[in-house]
Protein backbone atom coordinates (compact mmCIF):
# COMPACT_ATOMS: atom_id res chain seq x y z
CA UNK A 1 0.00 0.00 0.00
CA UNK A 2 1.15 3.50 -0.70
CA UNK A 3 3.06 5.19 2.07
CA UNK A 4 0.89 8.28 2.25
CA UNK A 5 -2.43 6.48 2.62
CA UNK A 6 -4.48 8.12 5.37
CA UNK A 7 -7.32 5.59 5.17
CA UNK A 8 -6.76 1.90 4.59
CA UNK A 9 -9.60 -0.51 4.01
CA UNK A 10 -8.56 -4.11 4.55
CA UNK A 11 -10.62 -7.07 3.35
CA UNK A 12 -13.85 -5.34 4.36
CA UNK A 13 -17.15 -7.10 3.78
CA UNK A 14 -20.65 -6.33 4.92
CA UNK A 15 -23.60 -8.68 5.06
CA UNK A 16 -26.83 -7.15 6.33
CA UNK A 17 -29.33 -8.95 8.53
CA UNK A 18 -31.32 -11.25 6.31
CA UNK A 19 -28.26 -12.24 4.33
CA UNK A 20 -27.99 -9.40 1.78
CA UNK A 21 -24.34 -9.08 0.91
CA UNK A 22 -23.62 -5.40 0.28
CA UNK A 23 -19.83 -5.47 0.08
CA UNK A 24 -17.30 -8.23 -0.39
CA UNK A 25 -13.56 -8.15 0.24
CA UNK A 26 -12.75 -4.50 -0.36
CA UNK A 27 -9.07 -3.51 -0.25
CA UNK A 28 -8.41 0.15 -0.66
CA UNK A 29 -5.87 2.83 0.17
CA UNK A 30 -6.93 6.46 0.09
CA UNK A 31 -4.13 9.02 -0.24
CA UNK A 32 -3.75 11.94 2.14
CA UNK A 33 -4.76 15.38 0.95
CA UNK A 34 -6.54 14.03 -2.12
CA UNK A 35 -10.11 13.73 -3.23
CA UNK A 36 -11.18 10.15 -3.82
CA UNK A 37 -14.55 9.20 -5.21
CA UNK A 38 -16.48 6.02 -4.64
CA UNK A 39 -18.50 5.60 -7.82
CA UNK A 40 -20.95 2.95 -8.83
CA UNK A 41 -24.54 2.10 -9.65
CA UNK A 42 -27.30 2.12 -7.03
CA UNK A 43 -26.95 -0.77 -4.63
CA UNK A 44 -23.20 -1.24 -5.11
CA UNK A 45 -22.65 -0.54 -1.43
CA UNK A 46 -20.74 2.72 -1.89
CA UNK A 47 -22.65 4.50 0.86
CA UNK A 48 -22.22 1.44 3.09
CA UNK A 49 -18.46 1.55 2.50
CA UNK A 50 -18.37 5.27 3.31
CA UNK A 51 -20.33 4.73 6.52
CA UNK A 52 -18.01 1.88 7.50
CA UNK A 53 -15.06 4.24 7.06
CA UNK A 54 -16.98 6.82 9.11
CA UNK A 55 -17.48 4.27 11.90
CA UNK A 56 -21.26 4.58 11.64
CA UNK A 57 -21.70 1.00 10.41
CA UNK A 58 -19.61 -1.92 11.68
CA UNK A 59 -18.15 -4.14 8.96
CA UNK A 60 -19.03 -7.85 9.07
CA UNK A 61 -15.50 -8.78 8.06
CA UNK A 62 -12.17 -7.01 7.76
CA UNK A 63 -11.11 -3.69 9.24
CA UNK A 64 -10.53 -0.02 8.45
CA UNK A 65 -7.46 1.88 9.59
CA UNK A 66 -7.40 5.67 9.73
CA UNK A 67 -4.13 7.48 10.46
CA UNK A 68 -2.62 4.26 11.77
CA UNK A 69 -5.48 3.50 14.15
CA UNK A 70 -8.15 0.87 13.76
CA UNK A 71 -11.66 2.31 13.36
CA UNK A 72 -14.01 1.32 16.19
CA UNK A 73 -16.53 4.13 15.70
CA UNK A 74 -16.68 7.77 14.65
CA UNK A 75 -13.59 9.82 15.46
CA UNK A 76 -12.50 13.46 15.62
CA UNK A 77 -10.32 13.11 12.51
CA UNK A 78 -13.37 12.31 10.36
CA UNK A 79 -16.38 14.53 9.59
CA UNK A 80 -19.47 13.51 7.62
CA UNK A 81 -21.64 15.39 5.13
CA UNK A 82 -25.03 13.76 4.72
CA UNK A 83 -27.05 13.15 1.60
CA UNK A 84 -30.22 14.49 3.23
CA UNK A 85 -28.25 17.30 4.98
CA UNK A 86 -29.30 16.10 8.49
CA UNK A 87 -29.77 19.61 9.84
CA UNK A 88 -31.69 20.28 13.03
CA UNK A 89 -34.94 21.84 11.76
CA UNK A 90 -35.45 23.76 15.01
CA UNK A 91 -31.98 25.31 15.03
CA UNK A 92 -30.73 28.23 12.95
CA UNK A 93 -27.73 28.09 10.62
CA UNK A 94 -25.32 29.28 13.30
CA UNK A 95 -26.31 26.58 15.76
CA UNK A 96 -26.37 23.90 13.07
CA UNK A 97 -22.86 24.75 11.91
CA UNK A 98 -21.64 24.92 15.51
CA UNK A 99 -23.41 21.68 16.46
CA UNK A 100 -20.35 19.44 16.16
CA UNK A 101 -18.45 21.82 18.44
CA UNK A 102 -21.42 22.02 20.81
CA UNK A 103 -21.27 18.23 21.18
CA UNK A 104 -17.55 18.53 21.99
CA UNK A 105 -18.33 20.88 24.85
CA UNK A 106 -16.94 24.18 23.55
CA UNK A 107 -18.42 27.30 25.11
CA UNK A 108 -20.99 29.26 23.14
CA UNK A 109 -18.58 32.08 22.33
CA UNK A 110 -15.83 29.74 21.16
CA UNK A 111 -18.02 27.66 18.93
CA UNK A 112 -19.93 30.60 17.46
CA UNK A 113 -16.69 32.31 16.57
CA UNK A 114 -15.44 29.24 14.72
CA UNK A 115 -18.82 28.59 13.11
CA UNK A 116 -19.11 32.19 11.81
CA UNK A 117 -15.80 31.82 10.01
CA UNK A 118 -16.95 28.68 8.22
CA UNK A 119 -20.39 30.10 7.45
CA UNK A 120 -18.65 32.98 5.69
CA UNK A 121 -16.44 30.51 3.78
CA UNK A 122 -19.40 28.71 2.29
CA UNK A 123 -21.03 32.03 1.41
CA UNK A 124 -23.90 32.06 3.91
CA UNK A 125 -22.85 35.05 5.99
CA UNK A 126 -26.23 36.75 5.57
CA UNK A 127 -28.10 33.64 6.67
CA UNK A 128 -26.63 32.95 10.11
CA UNK A 129 -29.97 33.30 11.84
CA UNK A 130 -32.08 31.63 9.13
CA UNK A 131 -33.67 28.25 9.72
CA UNK A 132 -33.16 25.26 7.40
CA UNK A 133 -36.71 25.47 6.02
CA UNK A 134 -35.98 29.00 4.82
CA UNK A 135 -33.01 27.82 2.74
CA UNK A 136 -32.80 26.15 -0.67
CA UNK A 137 -31.40 22.64 -1.02
CA UNK A 138 -28.02 23.97 -2.14
CA UNK A 139 -27.82 26.34 0.80
CA UNK A 140 -28.74 23.58 3.22
CA UNK A 141 -25.90 21.46 1.93
CA UNK A 142 -23.54 24.41 2.39
CA UNK A 143 -24.61 24.39 6.04
CA UNK A 144 -23.84 20.66 6.14
CA UNK A 145 -20.41 21.29 4.65
CA UNK A 146 -19.67 24.19 7.01
CA UNK A 147 -20.61 21.97 9.96
CA UNK A 148 -18.12 19.33 8.77
CA UNK A 149 -15.39 21.95 8.23
CA UNK A 150 -16.01 23.54 11.64
CA UNK A 151 -14.83 20.48 13.58
CA UNK A 152 -11.52 20.68 11.71
CA UNK A 153 -11.27 17.03 10.78
CA UNK A 154 -8.52 15.84 8.42
CA UNK A 155 -10.92 13.69 6.46
CA UNK A 156 -14.27 14.84 5.09
CA UNK A 157 -16.64 12.06 4.13
CA UNK A 158 -19.36 13.14 1.72
CA UNK A 159 -22.33 10.91 0.93
CA UNK A 160 -23.85 12.00 -2.40
CA UNK A 161 -23.93 15.57 -1.11
CA UNK A 162 -25.33 17.06 -4.31
CA UNK A 163 -27.92 14.44 -5.17
CA UNK A 164 -30.90 16.49 -3.96
CA UNK A 165 -29.63 19.74 -5.43
CA UNK A 166 -30.54 21.05 -8.89
CA UNK A 167 -28.01 20.89 -11.73
CA UNK A 168 -26.96 24.57 -11.83
CA UNK A 169 -26.42 24.68 -8.07
CA UNK A 170 -24.61 21.40 -8.29
CA UNK A 171 -22.02 22.68 -10.80
CA UNK A 172 -21.44 25.87 -8.88
CA UNK A 173 -21.09 23.94 -5.67
CA UNK A 174 -18.61 21.49 -7.23
CA UNK A 175 -16.40 24.36 -8.34
CA UNK A 176 -16.49 26.00 -4.94
CA UNK A 177 -15.82 22.70 -3.24
CA UNK A 178 -12.68 22.14 -5.31
CA UNK A 179 -11.52 25.64 -4.54
CA UNK A 180 -12.16 25.38 -0.84
CA UNK A 181 -10.63 21.95 -0.38
CA UNK A 182 -7.52 22.74 -2.36
CA UNK A 183 -6.78 25.50 0.12
CA UNK A 184 -7.52 23.40 3.16
CA UNK A 185 -5.51 20.32 2.18
CA UNK A 186 -8.26 18.04 3.40
CA UNK A 187 -8.60 14.43 2.43
CA UNK A 188 -12.04 13.97 0.91
CA UNK A 189 -13.89 10.75 0.28
CA UNK A 190 -16.84 11.41 -1.92
CA UNK A 191 -19.70 9.09 -2.88
CA UNK A 192 -21.56 9.76 -6.10
CA UNK A 193 -23.32 7.99 -8.92
CA UNK A 194 -22.51 10.74 -11.43
CA UNK A 195 -19.64 9.90 -13.79
CA UNK A 196 -19.02 13.54 -14.71
CA UNK A 197 -19.00 14.62 -11.11
CA UNK A 198 -16.48 11.91 -10.21
CA UNK A 199 -14.18 12.73 -13.12
CA UNK A 200 -14.46 16.46 -12.52
CA UNK A 201 -13.68 16.37 -8.82
CA UNK A 202 -11.42 13.42 -8.19
CA UNK A 203 -7.76 12.67 -7.97
CA UNK A 204 -8.71 9.03 -7.64
CA UNK A 205 -11.90 7.25 -8.67
CA UNK A 206 -12.79 3.93 -7.11
CA UNK A 207 -15.25 2.09 -9.35
CA UNK A 208 -17.53 -0.34 -7.58
CA UNK A 209 -19.54 -3.05 -9.29
CA UNK A 210 -23.09 -3.94 -8.37
CA UNK A 211 -24.17 -6.15 -5.51
CA UNK A 212 -22.24 -7.54 -3.84
CA UNK A 213 -19.98 -4.50 -4.18
CA UNK A 214 -16.39 -5.14 -5.19
CA UNK A 215 -13.80 -2.82 -6.64
CA UNK A 216 -13.77 -3.20 -10.40
CA UNK A 217 -11.14 -0.57 -11.11
CA UNK A 218 -9.27 2.39 -9.66
CA UNK A 219 -8.71 5.30 -12.03
CA UNK A 220 -6.46 8.29 -11.48
CA UNK A 221 -7.55 10.86 -14.06
CA UNK A 222 -4.45 13.03 -13.67
CA UNK A 223 -6.20 16.25 -14.64
CA UNK A 224 -4.16 19.39 -14.25
CA UNK A 225 -6.29 21.54 -11.97
CA UNK A 226 -3.70 24.12 -11.05
CA UNK A 227 -4.58 27.37 -12.72
CA UNK A 228 -7.33 25.95 -14.89
CA UNK A 229 -10.92 27.07 -14.56
CA UNK A 230 -13.93 24.76 -14.50
CA UNK A 231 -14.59 25.08 -18.22
CA UNK A 232 -11.01 24.21 -19.05
CA UNK A 233 -11.20 21.14 -16.85
CA UNK A 234 -14.35 20.01 -18.63
CA UNK A 235 -12.52 20.31 -21.97
CA UNK A 236 -9.33 18.70 -20.68
CA UNK A 237 -8.41 15.56 -22.65
CA UNK A 238 -7.67 13.61 -19.49
CA UNK A 239 -11.08 14.55 -18.08
CA UNK A 240 -12.86 13.37 -21.23
CA UNK A 241 -10.79 10.17 -21.32
CA UNK A 242 -11.64 9.44 -17.70
CA UNK A 243 -15.36 9.94 -18.33
CA UNK A 244 -15.15 7.59 -21.29
CA UNK A 245 -13.13 4.96 -19.49
CA UNK A 246 -15.52 4.94 -16.51
CA UNK A 247 -18.52 4.62 -18.81
CA UNK A 248 -16.95 1.69 -20.67
CA UNK A 249 -16.42 -0.16 -17.40
CA UNK A 250 -19.83 0.65 -15.91
CA UNK A 251 -21.50 -0.36 -19.17
CA UNK A 252 -20.14 -3.88 -18.84
CA UNK A 253 -21.93 -4.14 -15.50
CA UNK A 254 -25.22 -3.32 -17.13
CA UNK A 255 -24.95 -6.08 -19.72
Amino acid sequence: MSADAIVEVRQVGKTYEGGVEALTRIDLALPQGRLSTLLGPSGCGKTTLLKIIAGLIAPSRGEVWVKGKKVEGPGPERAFVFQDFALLPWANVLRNVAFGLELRGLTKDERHQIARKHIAEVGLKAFESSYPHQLSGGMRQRVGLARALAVDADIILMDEPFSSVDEQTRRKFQEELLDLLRHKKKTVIFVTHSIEEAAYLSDQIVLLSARPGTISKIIQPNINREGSGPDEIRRDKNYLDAVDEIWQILKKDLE
Partner: protein
Amino acid sequence: MEQKSQIANPLFWQLLSFALFFGLWELAGRWPISFAFPPFSKTFVALVRMVADGSLPKAYLSTLQPLIIGIVLCSIIGIGFGIGMGLSRTVEWLSLPIFIVLQAAPMAAIIPLITYMYGIGLTAKVLAVIVLAAPVIVMNSYKGIRNTNPSLIQMCRAFLGTRRQEVIKIILPHAGALVFAGLRLGLAMGFIGIVIAELLITPTGIGDLITYHSSVADYPKMFAAIVSIVLFAALTIQALERLERKLFPPEMRGLEDVS
Protein backbone atom coordinates in the same frame (compact mmCIF):
# COMPACT_ATOMS: atom_id res chain seq x y z
CA MET B 1 -66.48 38.35 -6.71
CA GLU B 2 -68.19 35.75 -4.56
CA GLN B 3 -65.04 33.70 -4.56
CA LYS B 4 -63.13 36.68 -3.28
CA SER B 5 -65.44 37.48 -0.38
CA GLN B 6 -65.35 33.85 0.63
CA ILE B 7 -61.61 33.91 1.03
CA ALA B 8 -61.49 37.36 2.53
CA ASN B 9 -64.11 36.68 5.15
CA PRO B 10 -63.81 33.28 6.78
CA LEU B 11 -65.14 34.78 10.02
CA PHE B 12 -68.37 35.74 8.27
CA TRP B 13 -69.01 32.16 7.17
CA GLN B 14 -68.09 30.77 10.56
CA LEU B 15 -70.55 33.10 12.26
CA LEU B 16 -73.18 32.23 9.66
CA SER B 17 -72.63 28.56 10.42
CA PHE B 18 -73.30 29.20 14.12
CA ALA B 19 -76.32 31.40 13.32
CA LEU B 20 -77.80 28.66 11.12
CA PHE B 21 -77.21 26.03 13.77
CA PHE B 22 -78.81 28.07 16.56
CA GLY B 23 -81.64 29.13 14.21
CA LEU B 24 -82.50 25.53 13.37
CA TRP B 25 -82.29 24.66 17.04
CA GLU B 26 -84.72 27.51 17.85
CA LEU B 27 -87.15 26.27 15.17
CA ALA B 28 -86.88 22.67 16.33
CA GLY B 29 -87.47 23.74 19.93
CA ARG B 30 -90.58 25.77 19.01
CA TRP B 31 -92.07 23.12 16.79
CA PRO B 32 -91.52 21.22 19.27
CA ILE B 33 -89.77 17.93 18.57
CA SER B 34 -90.24 16.86 22.13
CA PHE B 35 -91.50 18.37 25.36
CA ALA B 36 -87.99 17.83 26.74
CA PHE B 37 -86.29 19.79 23.93
CA PRO B 38 -86.20 23.53 24.70
CA PRO B 39 -85.57 26.14 22.01
CA PHE B 40 -82.23 27.92 21.84
CA SER B 41 -83.57 31.17 23.31
CA LYS B 42 -84.85 29.52 26.51
CA THR B 43 -81.62 27.55 26.90
CA PHE B 44 -79.60 30.72 26.52
CA VAL B 45 -81.66 32.54 29.13
CA ALA B 46 -81.25 29.57 31.47
CA LEU B 47 -77.50 29.66 30.90
CA VAL B 48 -77.31 33.37 31.79
CA ARG B 49 -79.37 32.76 34.91
CA MET B 50 -77.17 29.89 36.04
CA VAL B 51 -74.07 32.04 35.62
CA ALA B 52 -75.72 34.91 37.49
CA ASP B 53 -76.87 32.83 40.47
CA GLY B 54 -73.42 31.27 40.75
CA SER B 55 -74.54 27.66 40.33
CA LEU B 56 -72.65 27.19 37.06
CA PRO B 57 -69.31 28.66 38.21
CA LYS B 58 -69.55 26.58 41.38
CA ALA B 59 -70.21 23.45 39.34
CA TYR B 60 -67.18 24.15 37.18
CA LEU B 61 -64.94 24.55 40.21
CA SER B 62 -65.85 21.10 41.44
CA THR B 63 -65.69 19.49 37.97
CA LEU B 64 -62.33 20.97 37.08
CA GLN B 65 -60.62 19.88 40.29
CA PRO B 66 -60.39 16.13 39.55
CA LEU B 67 -59.84 16.90 35.86
CA ILE B 68 -56.81 19.07 36.51
CA ILE B 69 -55.35 16.73 39.13
CA GLY B 70 -55.80 13.80 36.74
CA ILE B 71 -54.23 15.56 33.76
CA VAL B 72 -51.27 16.84 35.80
CA LEU B 73 -50.60 13.33 37.12
CA CYS B 74 -50.92 11.94 33.59
CA SER B 75 -48.52 14.55 32.26
CA ILE B 76 -45.82 13.71 34.74
CA ILE B 77 -46.15 9.93 34.89
CA GLY B 78 -47.56 9.35 31.39
CA ILE B 79 -44.98 11.41 29.52
CA GLY B 80 -42.23 9.88 31.63
CA PHE B 81 -43.50 6.40 30.84
CA GLY B 82 -43.88 7.15 27.13
CA ILE B 83 -40.37 8.54 26.92
CA GLY B 84 -39.04 5.54 28.82
CA MET B 85 -40.78 3.21 26.37
CA GLY B 86 -39.34 5.14 23.46
CA LEU B 87 -35.80 5.06 24.77
CA SER B 88 -35.55 1.56 26.22
CA ARG B 89 -36.47 -1.64 24.40
CA THR B 90 -36.97 -3.42 27.71
CA VAL B 91 -39.53 -0.90 28.97
CA GLU B 92 -41.14 -1.01 25.54
CA TRP B 93 -41.56 -4.79 25.51
CA LEU B 94 -42.87 -4.76 29.08
CA SER B 95 -45.51 -2.11 28.66
CA LEU B 96 -46.37 -1.48 25.02
CA PRO B 97 -48.92 -4.34 24.77
CA ILE B 98 -50.76 -3.01 27.82
CA PHE B 99 -51.06 0.49 26.41
CA ILE B 100 -52.13 -0.74 22.97
CA VAL B 101 -54.96 -2.70 24.63
CA LEU B 102 -55.84 0.25 26.89
CA GLN B 103 -55.95 2.63 23.95
CA ALA B 104 -58.36 0.43 22.02
CA ALA B 105 -60.54 -0.61 24.98
CA PRO B 106 -63.82 1.21 25.78
CA MET B 107 -62.43 2.61 29.02
CA ALA B 108 -65.82 3.83 30.27
CA ALA B 109 -66.56 0.18 31.02
CA ILE B 110 -63.88 0.28 33.72
CA ILE B 111 -65.51 3.11 35.64
CA PRO B 112 -67.92 0.90 37.64
CA LEU B 113 -64.86 -1.12 38.65
CA ILE B 114 -63.17 2.06 39.87
CA THR B 115 -66.24 2.88 41.98
CA TYR B 116 -66.17 -0.62 43.40
CA MET B 117 -62.50 -0.29 44.42
CA TYR B 118 -62.12 3.38 45.28
CA GLY B 119 -65.60 4.48 46.31
CA ILE B 120 -67.26 7.67 45.21
CA GLY B 121 -64.83 10.34 46.33
CA LEU B 122 -62.31 12.52 44.56
CA THR B 123 -59.87 9.61 44.10
CA ALA B 124 -62.34 7.68 41.97
CA LYS B 125 -62.97 10.68 39.72
CA VAL B 126 -59.29 11.46 39.32
CA LEU B 127 -58.77 7.81 38.39
CA ALA B 128 -61.55 7.98 35.80
CA VAL B 129 -59.76 10.92 34.17
CA ILE B 130 -56.41 9.12 34.26
CA VAL B 131 -57.79 5.88 32.87
CA LEU B 132 -59.14 7.71 29.82
CA ALA B 133 -56.37 10.23 29.29
CA ALA B 134 -53.25 8.20 30.06
CA PRO B 135 -53.15 5.82 27.05
CA VAL B 136 -53.11 8.57 24.42
CA ILE B 137 -50.59 10.65 26.39
CA VAL B 138 -48.27 7.68 26.83
CA MET B 139 -48.61 6.48 23.24
CA ASN B 140 -47.99 9.92 21.77
CA SER B 141 -44.87 10.47 23.87
CA TYR B 142 -43.64 7.03 22.87
CA LYS B 143 -44.28 7.65 19.17
CA GLY B 144 -42.65 11.07 19.40
CA ILE B 145 -39.46 9.46 20.67
CA ARG B 146 -39.56 6.57 18.21
CA ASN B 147 -40.20 8.76 15.18
CA THR B 148 -36.98 10.71 15.55
CA ASN B 149 -35.37 11.14 12.15
CA PRO B 150 -32.70 8.36 12.08
CA SER B 151 -30.48 10.56 9.95
CA LEU B 152 -30.28 13.15 12.76
CA ILE B 153 -29.30 10.44 15.23
CA GLN B 154 -26.58 9.24 12.86
CA MET B 155 -25.41 12.84 12.44
CA CYS B 156 -25.15 13.18 16.21
CA ARG B 157 -23.08 10.01 16.42
CA ALA B 158 -20.87 11.02 13.49
CA PHE B 159 -20.03 14.26 15.32
CA LEU B 160 -19.12 12.31 18.46
CA GLY B 161 -22.30 12.97 20.44
CA THR B 162 -22.77 10.76 23.51
CA ARG B 163 -26.03 8.86 24.04
CA ARG B 164 -26.98 11.48 26.66
CA GLN B 165 -26.45 14.32 24.17
CA GLU B 166 -28.37 12.37 21.55
CA VAL B 167 -31.38 12.16 23.89
CA ILE B 168 -31.23 15.76 25.14
CA LYS B 169 -30.27 17.58 21.96
CA ILE B 170 -31.98 15.49 19.26
CA ILE B 171 -34.60 13.04 20.49
CA LEU B 172 -36.43 15.14 23.11
CA PRO B 173 -36.70 18.36 21.04
CA HIS B 174 -37.87 16.23 18.13
CA ALA B 175 -40.54 14.57 20.28
CA GLY B 176 -41.80 17.82 21.85
CA ALA B 177 -44.55 18.47 19.34
CA LEU B 178 -46.03 14.98 19.51
CA VAL B 179 -45.84 14.98 23.31
CA PHE B 180 -47.76 18.25 23.40
CA ALA B 181 -50.32 16.91 20.92
CA GLY B 182 -50.68 13.91 23.24
CA LEU B 183 -51.46 16.23 26.15
CA ARG B 184 -54.11 18.00 24.10
CA LEU B 185 -55.74 14.71 23.07
CA GLY B 186 -55.39 13.50 26.66
CA LEU B 187 -57.25 16.56 27.92
CA ALA B 188 -60.04 15.90 25.41
CA MET B 189 -60.29 12.35 26.77
CA GLY B 190 -60.12 13.75 30.31
CA PHE B 191 -63.23 15.86 29.65
CA ILE B 192 -65.07 12.72 28.59
CA GLY B 193 -63.74 10.89 31.64
CA ILE B 194 -64.81 13.52 34.16
CA VAL B 195 -68.32 13.94 32.75
CA ILE B 196 -68.86 10.17 32.66
CA ALA B 197 -67.53 9.95 36.20
CA GLU B 198 -69.88 12.69 37.39
CA LEU B 199 -72.83 11.00 35.73
CA LEU B 200 -71.96 7.42 36.73
CA ILE B 201 -70.16 7.66 40.07
CA THR B 202 -71.73 10.48 42.07
CA PRO B 203 -73.40 13.58 40.69
CA THR B 204 -71.15 16.55 41.40
CA GLY B 205 -70.33 19.67 39.40
CA ILE B 206 -71.65 19.72 35.87
CA GLY B 207 -72.83 16.12 36.13
CA ASP B 208 -74.93 17.15 39.12
CA LEU B 209 -76.49 20.12 37.26
CA ILE B 210 -77.40 17.84 34.34
CA THR B 211 -78.91 15.08 36.47
CA TYR B 212 -80.68 17.42 38.90
CA HIS B 213 -82.36 19.65 36.29
CA SER B 214 -83.33 16.60 34.29
CA SER B 215 -84.97 15.03 37.35
CA VAL B 216 -87.01 18.17 38.10
CA ALA B 217 -87.85 18.54 34.37
CA ASP B 218 -86.15 21.95 34.09
CA TYR B 219 -84.98 21.11 30.59
CA PRO B 220 -83.65 24.56 29.58
CA LYS B 221 -81.23 24.47 32.52
CA MET B 222 -80.26 20.89 31.81
CA PHE B 223 -79.52 21.79 28.20
CA ALA B 224 -77.65 24.91 29.28
CA ALA B 225 -75.36 22.78 31.47
CA ILE B 226 -74.73 20.34 28.62
CA VAL B 227 -74.07 23.07 26.07
CA SER B 228 -71.76 24.92 28.45
CA ILE B 229 -69.50 21.91 29.06
CA VAL B 230 -69.42 21.07 25.35
CA LEU B 231 -68.42 24.64 24.49
CA PHE B 232 -65.96 24.86 27.35
CA ALA B 233 -64.18 21.66 26.29
CA ALA B 234 -64.19 22.64 22.61
CA LEU B 235 -62.76 26.11 23.30
CA THR B 236 -60.08 24.79 25.65
CA ILE B 237 -58.93 22.18 23.13
CA GLN B 238 -59.02 24.73 20.33
CA ALA B 239 -56.87 27.14 22.37
CA LEU B 240 -54.36 24.38 23.06
CA GLU B 241 -54.23 23.55 19.36
CA ARG B 242 -53.38 27.16 18.56
CA LEU B 243 -50.72 27.23 21.25
CA GLU B 244 -49.30 24.01 19.81
CA ARG B 245 -49.00 25.50 16.33
CA LYS B 246 -47.29 28.52 17.81
CA LEU B 247 -44.85 26.52 19.95
CA PHE B 248 -44.10 23.86 17.35
CA PRO B 249 -44.60 25.22 13.83
CA PRO B 250 -44.51 22.31 11.32
CA GLU B 251 -41.53 23.73 9.43
CA MET B 252 -39.47 23.77 12.62
CA ARG B 253 -40.13 20.06 12.95
CA GLY B 254 -38.77 19.33 9.48
CA LEU B 255 -42.21 18.41 8.18
CA GLU B 256 -42.33 20.63 5.10
CA ASP B 257 -41.21 18.96 1.91
CA VAL B 258 -37.58 19.34 0.92
CA SER B 259 -37.45 21.73 -2.00
